[in-house]
């Protein structure tokens, strides 16, 4: 890794006083321990050199040395390695320089740790509440180890999130928490001047399930993949794979080649499913229900196929640490090839219909405009990035599973708009079919499961990424004692992409809001992972129809 060594040397000469040590557990992972004073400068330097910001990981280390840890992670895609900048702050004074002014996408991560760990970031441009419920009591930070996973503070009345100020001359259109274009609960305040969008504010994190907390306090390594699958209803295998890879990496453990091939096949089937689903939803969002119905008809065949392979239409439960749970038999191979042929043919028809449809062009060309520079600045991932000429794809840049043996193209267009995301996704369907065929062809014989005998050593850091249909998912694992992770951080692709949406929305028409938001294929629950669910104090209160009517009508 020449590029990695070079970066190491240059950082050493420039920030020698701030750097404590370098660590390279695997060839393509560089961990840098720095003093807290140096975090801002070093992050800025790495970002400026083209390091794509991934996510920040804050963790509680109070029991060991009275500190709160913080890791900023970056990826160099061309040279295919990751850089993780680690630092820590004393619990008594948990103040750190904010890197958000230089790395805008770090905004949410830092806000998250203000809520969850009680850290403070000087110079953060928008230090508002992000994750915790509005009635969550001050001073309780749920990700700290001394807070029990099932804590239920009493609910409070009359607290509400303060949306940003509406700019002068604009009016507010509320979208959400429930709205047909959102599919999941979250709230947007759209500031419009006539029908033109002049700004917006977002309040999400409404369906927190506390998955990270749960999995680091209650559940052991081997059970987590099944919970990881439930982070997202659509890219389940992605999260299970990313988590399993991170743990395998931390343990220095190699799984069988056959299981890597099966993982690849499952990931690509999932991509087919997700892209067809998205195509349908996108059609619906612009009022083109025929596209919606036809795309979902094609998708149905894939779900039946998955049922035959795994036993489930979705949430397959295939991927576990050490391999996969079911083999692909010769009959299943035949079955998959048949379905692929059908999907390929039918998608060709859909592709031709979409490419030639003038109303789709009208509704998507030039809509949701964002330049390549802005996309890089906001660390956008997946099809929204590739539609803006940013040539990144974790499958090619950071090969995992069996992707190193697969030959496929990464479609990149530079229309910078929603139309580009349509084209990228449809082309990726054909690439996915290609990969599945290759994987079935090349798959070696062997066991599908490798048992791990040794105990995983504690406090090992590992980062793994998987190209989900919507973009890149990143999982960061810090191993711990008691057969479970000390910290597990999930970053779903919607997390960075959603932060770029306000830029895409600016000066667009309100009628385009659904499709612009839809173009990133948002998965809000994927971002909502961290908080403990707040249920009312156990007392059941049955409401009559009259009560509900009273509540829902004018007070």
């Amino acid at each position, binding site marked *: 890794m020449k590029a990695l060594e070079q970066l190491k040397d240059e950082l050493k000469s420039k920030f020698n006083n701030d750097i404590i040590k370098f660590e390279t557990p695997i060839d393509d992972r560089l961990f840098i321990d720095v003093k807290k004073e140096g975090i801002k400068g070093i992050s800025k330097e790495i970002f400026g050199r083209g390091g794509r910001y991934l996510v920040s990981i804050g963790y509680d280390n109070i029991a060991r040395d009275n500190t709160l840890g913080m890791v900023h992670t970056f990826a160099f895609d061309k040279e295919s390695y990751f850089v993780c900048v680690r630092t820590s702050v004393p619990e008594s004074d948990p103040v750190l320089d904010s890197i958000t002014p230089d790395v805008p996408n770090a905004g949410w991560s830092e806000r998250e740790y203000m809520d969850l760990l009680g850290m403070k970031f000087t110079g953060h441009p928008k230090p508002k509440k992000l994750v915790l419920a509005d009635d969550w009591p001050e001073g309780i930070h749920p990700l700290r180890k001394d807070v029990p996973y099932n804590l239920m503070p009493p609910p409070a009345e009359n607290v509400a999130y303060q949306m940003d100020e509406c700019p002068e001359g604009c009016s507010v259109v509320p979208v959400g928490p429930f709205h047909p274009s959102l599919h999941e609960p979250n709230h947007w305040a759209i500031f419009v001047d006539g029908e033109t969008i002049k700004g917006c504010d977002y309040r999400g994190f409404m369906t927190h399930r506390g998955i990270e907390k749960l999995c680091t306090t209650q559940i052991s390594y081997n059970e987590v993949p099944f919970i990881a699958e439930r982070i997202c209803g659509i890219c389940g295998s992605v999260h299970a794979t990313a988590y399993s890879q991170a743990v395998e990496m931390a343990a220095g453990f190699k799984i069988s080649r056959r299981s890597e091939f099966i993982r690849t096949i499952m990931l690509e089937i999932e991509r087919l499913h997700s892209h067809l689903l998205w195509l349908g939803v996108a059609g619906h969002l612009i*009022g083109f229900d025929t596209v919606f119905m036809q795309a979902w008809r094609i998708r149905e065949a894939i779900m039946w196929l998955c049922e035959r392979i795994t036993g489930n239409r979705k949430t397959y439960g295939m991927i576990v640490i050490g391999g996969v749970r079911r083999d692909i038999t010769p009959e299943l191979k035949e079955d998959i090839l048949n379905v692929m042929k059908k999907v390929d043919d039918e998608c060709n028809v859909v592709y031709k219909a979409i490419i030639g449809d003038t109303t789709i062009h009208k509704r998507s060309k030039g809509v949701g405009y964002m330049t390549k520079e802005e996309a890089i600045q906001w660390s956008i991932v997946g099809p929204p990035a590739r539609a803006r000429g940013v040539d990144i794809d974790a499958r090619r840049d950071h090969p995992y599973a069996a992707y190193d043996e697969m030959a496929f193209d990464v479609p990149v267009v530079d229309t910078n708009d929603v139309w580009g995301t349509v084209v990228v996704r449809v082309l990726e369907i054909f690439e996915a079919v290609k990969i599945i065929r290759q994987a079935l062809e090349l798959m070696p014989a062997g066991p599908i499961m490798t048992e791990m005998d040794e105990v995983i050593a504690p406090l090992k850091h590992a980062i793994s990424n998987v190209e989900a249909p919507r973009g890149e998912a990143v999982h960061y694992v810090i191993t711990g004692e008691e057969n479970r992770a000390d910290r597990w951080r999930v970053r779903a692709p919607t997390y960075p992409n959603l932060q770029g949406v306000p830029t895409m929305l600016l000066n667009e028409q309100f009628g385009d809001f659904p499709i612009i938001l839809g173009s990133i294929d948002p998965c809000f629950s994927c971002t909502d992972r961290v908080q403990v669910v707040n249920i009312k104090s156990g007392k059941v209160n049955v409401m009559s129809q009259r009560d509900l009517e009273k509540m829902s009508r004018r007070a």
Partner: protein
Amino acid sequence: MEAVYIIINILVFLGLAPLFEGIIRKLTAKVQSRQGPPIYQPYMDILKLLGKETINSADNWGFKVAPLMAFASIVSVIAFFPLANRANLLTPYADVIMIIYLLTLGGIAVLLGALSSKNTYAMIGASREMVTMIMVEPVLAMTLIMGAVKVKSLGIDMTMFSTNYAGYGWSVVLMLVVYLMALQAFIGRQPFDISEAEIEILEGPFIEYSGPNYALFKYYMMLKQMFYAALFVVVFIPYFNTGFYIADLIVQIVEIGLIFVFISVIGSTNARLRIDQAIKFYTVLIVLSLCAVGLSVYGI
């Protein structure tokens, strides 16, 4: 006999409008590889809504009166309408200006309901509806004015039968094309279902309506789309006159059905346009319809 025609008019429209809606839904489902609802589903929808409780979410008279006003205005238009190419007792008492006026009144009623429901989405829907009305109403007016120019009369029957009296010229062909292009906008279907746009503004003007009030609005929309289809048939297809009232009536109903096939195919193969894109489209239509009237003045 002429008085009976009025009653038949109203019965035919009230009875068949939901059926044609059902045809649209069934055909759309077929295009989308779906089973689709049974063809009589719209009747069921209306019956069900009529049996529901009325929720008066906006406590003012405008909100209550708007659905009635819309429904009444479209029924009055139908009462004057020379269905089956026969003027009825009422037809001579009004002129085409009156028809345009009453049709606009229906739109105004929708606006009234939307604005008095005080809902943000309804407001957006109302402003879109208003723009649509202003931009497509001229096409309707020009269609009738062209007829009036041809027969030099504003009488309803004379104007609407103008093609029959004065024959098919280039102006009529042009107007026919323009009318077909505007048809989806008249009846608020894709690509011009902008003011309802479920996914953006949740049915816009009707968001606060429920129960019988909503049933009236739904019925109004169905009657309106049947009226615009029937108007096309009467103005542009003046053929197949058998001389027998019942036979003429059946011929026209079949022709209306064919128009509905056209409506559902266009509706299911287009995405919804944005309001600013639609306005550009409407502007072209207005200019073309003015050209058609200009041509008709010279007898072309």
